[in-house]
């Protein structure tokens, strides 16, 4: 039933978004959280790309002198995906650098362990 509303790619995109979102929310390990974030973003990008695709048309690059827009797919979603990828890469870079800083200080990637370490420190004081 759901395939009547959405194409296969869009269903896959929403499933990917769900997987990534839950990983980002529930995984304890920071690296796994970041992987989840990237899966979530990829889901959105797949959704965008499949939205811009129109069956039977070509990539929006002028070939053989055909200039009519009817022959090409919508190029805007592709532009949005590119912008989105740039944003996603920079966010990942910042998060990875924070992760490195956290690991150097606490020698663990598990956020629960970090809380416990901080609690122990407070009690020692």
């Amino acid at each position, binding site marked *: 039933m759901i395939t009547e509303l959405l194409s296969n790619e869009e269903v896959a995109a929403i499933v990917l978004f769900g997987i990534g*979102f839950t990983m*980002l929310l529930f995984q304890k390990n920071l690296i796994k959280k970041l992987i989840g*974030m990237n899966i979530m*973003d990829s889901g*959105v990008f797949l959704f965008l790309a499949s939205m811009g695709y129109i069956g039977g048309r070509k990539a929006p690059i002028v070939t053989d002198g055909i200039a009519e827009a009817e022959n090409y797919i919508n190029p805007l979603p592709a532009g*949005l995906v590119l912008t989105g990828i740039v*944003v996603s890469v*920079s*966010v990942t870079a910042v998060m990875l650098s924070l992760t490195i800083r956290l690991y150097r200080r606490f020698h663990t990637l598990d956020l629960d362990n970090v*809380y416990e370490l901080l609690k122990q420190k407070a009690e020692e004081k």
Partner: protein
Amino acid sequence: MDFIRNFPLFMIILSLFSGALCFMLPRKASFVYTVCFECLLTAMAAALLVFTSQTGSSFTYTMGEFPAPWGNEIRAGITESVFALGFVFILLCSVTGGYRYLNGDTDPTKVNLFFALVNLLTAALLSLVFTNDIFTGYVFLEILTLASCGTVVVREIGKTTLAAIRYMILNLLGSGLFLLGVVLLYDITGNLLMEPMHGVITEIVSESGVIPSLSIAVAILTIGLSIKSGLFPFHYWMPDTYGFSTPSAAAILSSLTSKGYIFLLIKIYCRVIGLDTLRQMPVCDVLLSLGLLGIAVGSVQAMHTNNINTMIAFSSAAQIGYIFAGIGLCTEDGMIAALFHILAHAMTKSMLFITVPRLSEAAGGAKVFRDLQGSGIRDKDAGVAFAIGAFSMIGIPIFAGFASKLLFGIAAIDSGSNFKLTMIMLALAVSSMLNAIYFIRTLIRIFTPAGDTGLMEHPRHHAGFLIPVALLTAVNLFLGLFSGVVTELITRGLAMFP
């Protein structure tokens, strides 16, 4: 005068450029440069406000001369100018007021990086205020998040790293949802500029009512932005993030970053969805209930804490609840009250965040209430500033907090629903009472003589503290006494929104 039409773009581009410049400047020079630059931005925003309110119209600035459905646009009307002015002014005061602590909190060689981040944050904030393109909104939303996170980790202790990671994870969840909402809206309307989107949505709604996919898109987008701005139940990152970061960063985060997201949400509601369509969606009632719950929970948590920074952070959560309750009414009065409260709360909170470190300094670095006794007497400047901020938060007449509570009351009466009226009035009453309890308790504590503690008096006056606090107090009183002027500007601005 037509030259002023370029100001919105200039403000954004110059802020980006300043961000790059501050990476290269030495420590002191980057501070002086940032302060001068923020003064310039304030003047530009003021000129823009005068221009738009005199001509009484808004204007769009087409980037690269591509006309409407294709190009990217910046739009400036009265509301945008008021908020650009308010945001830049608060930024100026927060940066100046917290500078003294920055040197102690960070590695001295990295102070200029903080100012680089502040300038990038300004650019992102101004873009959120001015943009007319919803995807540009998303891009600058992420830049704002990254820059804010950077200002938190500038103070290099383990706790800020942890706080920044928690902050980022919640914000990333929010951004992901916001992006999905934007993409769904694009799927429905086929446009990214706000006016054409609004046109298509009105057409769809008049033909086939509020279709489920539209409601879902709006709901996803709303959840994303409310996670990012810290609406209950997503507010638990606030105490750590605000409490451990350097005072300037705490002031900027609580009074500007979260407010920038809310301003974008209001803009999308008024300009893309339209209030009439919005009223038919369930998202309004959800926002109203979460807002009211946030008011109650935030106030109770603020009352139960033992730490002055945590108290102020939780009180922020309660104030965010007010704003969302106003938005949840989905009426024009509700939006006006929410917008006014954004300004009122931002002015007050930034003042409290740059005052508290001085109080705790006067108490020998303590942050727990018991040890703060008498700190308001030892450092009278900070004591008086805290009292003014506290009075405004409680909502005592002549201060800004009173005017916004009055506006919420009026909006609730005009909402036309007795149940909503009762709930909002109840929340206003309970929260004002709780606010009064925990702020007056703190005031009594800091103004009670502590006896002989061996701590030094603080006779010195710091211009870097007094000037921003005096400016913020003046604006606070202006908002309280002449709230009519500001609400009239906002009303006129909202009228030209669609």
